[in-house]
């Protein structure tokens, strides 16, 4: 064995490193087991079947304090996913608008967009959440004097309530019709493209799709009895009943996450659009393409390649940032896990579950991103 050889030295270092890491882990585990035994806490995931004993304020799926910890954690996860999903959609819409606005020729619009981005990006998200939560709980009137927007939206300190159609088969049928309409829309677009390839001109695509998406569900709704009954939020006792409820915690978190992340998404979109070389637009103009065609056929395909990876990174950040819910009392996964930890003392197991969940989400998104990049990479020599 040649001790001077780099390879051998490399292996010696690695073995030493492994030994050190293993030793450290063994020591930590040993301490932990000792401490847990001293406190009379069981190691393992058995506690998940025990009765939780605490209430959760937002339960998309039915839950009662008598249910198990496992169920409570599932509720927490559901809450995390719901607020993240809504946040992602809202942040994307807002972010794209602001990002494009920053590049607008109108200086006032560009200036306002820039002011927005600089305002939200330079202040901690936690403080923004406190502001939104404060506005929603302090500045909204008490339940008895709730602000009502035509009876459709009712805002009070207890949160927001939206009027929602009463459950009726007609809506389900309309929903199915909408799905059918989406499929038909794709089919129509495909047919239109085949027609353009064959003859050079194509039947109108957008108007037909719009008509389909509106007319088909409408027709189905009509045929199924045109259910018009809407459940309005009505004051009954201490709170409004009826309609869909949105707690102030949820609203604050959703609004805060959306507005904050939108600022970052705006920058990503702006960078993507700027990354397209000006010569590309020149060439497209010289060929006679219309502004819409230039955007659709030349600029967007190139800009999207640059936009999508950092965009999904922002989605990931939003999902991780939803954990700030614990600071304003929204029962997300971390929040529920925290309560569980405090009640059972099973800190390690609870945290392990939480971290495993987030890791899974992160790795899934990263894998999807790698797939996207591999498929859309520009081919070079």
């Amino acid at each position, binding site marked *: 064995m040649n001790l001077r050889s780099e390879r051998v030295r490399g292996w010696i270092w690695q073995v030493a490193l492994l030994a050190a890491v293993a030793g450290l882990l063994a020591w930590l585990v040993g301490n932990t087991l000792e401490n847990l035994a001293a406190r009379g806490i069981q190691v393992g995931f058995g506690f998940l079947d025990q009765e939780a004993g605490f209430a959760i304020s937002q339960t998309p799926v039915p839950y009662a304090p008598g249910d198990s910890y496992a169920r409570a954690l599932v509720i927490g996860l559901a809450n995390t996913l719901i607020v993240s999903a809504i946040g992602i959609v809202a942040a994307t819409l807002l972010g794209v608008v602001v990002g494009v606005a920053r590049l607008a020729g109108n200086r006032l619009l560009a200036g306002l967009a820039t002011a927005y981005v600089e305002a939200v990006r330079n202040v901690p998200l936690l403080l923004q959440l406190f502001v939104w939560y404060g506005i929603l709980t302090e500045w909204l009137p008490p339940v008895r004097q709730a602000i009502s927007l035509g009876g459709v939206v009712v805002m009070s300190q207890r949160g927001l309530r939206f009027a929602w159609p009463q459950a009726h088969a007609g809506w389900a049928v309309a929903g199915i019709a909408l799905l059918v309409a989406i499929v038909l829309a794709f089919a129509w677009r495909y047919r239109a493209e085949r027609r353009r390839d064959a003859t050079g001109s194509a039947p109108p695509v957008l108007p037909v799709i719009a008509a389909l998406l509106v007319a088909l569900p409408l027709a189905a709704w009509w045929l199924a009895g045109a259910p018009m009954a809407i459940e309005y939020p009505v004051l009954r006792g201490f709170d409004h009943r009826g309609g869909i409820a949105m707690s102030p915690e949820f609203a604050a978190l959703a609004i805060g996450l959306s507005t904050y992340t939108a600022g970052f998404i705006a920058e990503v979109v702006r960078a993507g659009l700027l990354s397209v070389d000006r010569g590309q637009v020149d060439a497209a103009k010289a060929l006679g393409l219309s502004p819409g065609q230039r955007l659709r*056929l030349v600029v967007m395909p190139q800009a999207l390649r640059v936009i999508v990876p950092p965009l999904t990174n922002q989605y990931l950040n939003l999902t991780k940032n939803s954990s700030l819910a614990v600071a304003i009392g929204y029962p997300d996964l971390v929040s529920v896990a925290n309560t569980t930890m405090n009640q059972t003392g099973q800190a390690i197991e609870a945290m392990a579950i939480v971290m495993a969940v987030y890791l899974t989400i992160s790795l899934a998104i990263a894998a999807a991103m790698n797939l996207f990049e591999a498929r859309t990479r*520009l081919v070079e020599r």
Partner: protein
Amino acid sequence: MDAPAVSIRGLEKWFGDFQALRSVDLEVARGERIVVCGPSGSGKSTLIRCINRLEVHERGRILVEGVELDDDLRNIDTIRARVGMVFQQFNLFPHLTVLENCTLAPVWVRRLPRRDADARALALLERVRIADQANKYPGQLSGGQQQRAAIARALCMEPSIMLFDEPTSALDPEMVKEVLDTMMTLAEDGMTMIVVTHEMGFARAVADRVVFMDEGEIVEVAPPAQFFSAPQQERTRRFLGQIL
């Protein structure tokens, strides 16, 4: 007498406070080949970019085949349909194959059926001798091949006038010849061409007239024989002394 291909009168253009073009007058007849040369910053690129409205002129008039170039979008579209342009940086669309680059505009602007567009594109790619690269992406081609593809792309729209903005300046020396040869066959086929270039050999061989620009104005115009052997202006002489 036919209307001239391009008629420019009193053209003036500023970039902020910098005047890029000072009262330029030029007339290009159909089938004529013009080479524009001059030191950098002289306004040569700006001039030809004004012709297809990639730059907007402030004063003066430009007429392309009798159509006035102004803010009217229809006129701009008409003119762009008749004028093809080849850029120094090629500007091929990297996300499309060479064939798709060529058929994009015929399909979407001229509304050609795809089969006809493909056929026309392949014929033109054959003419510039890169038909075998049709299904490759621009990133896979050499500089010379990319520029020839760019020429084919412009030709697919069947322009009557071709503008070239320093087409060989970004190429390695061994690839300059293949592009110049392509441009020469184009000239032999009777295309009206306005070429901004430093390639004086090309000017001597192909040009009907050589235009020398300096500091935003046309200094001298003459047929190549006279331009190169007996330049009239001092500035022209100095320029020729530097590059030849």
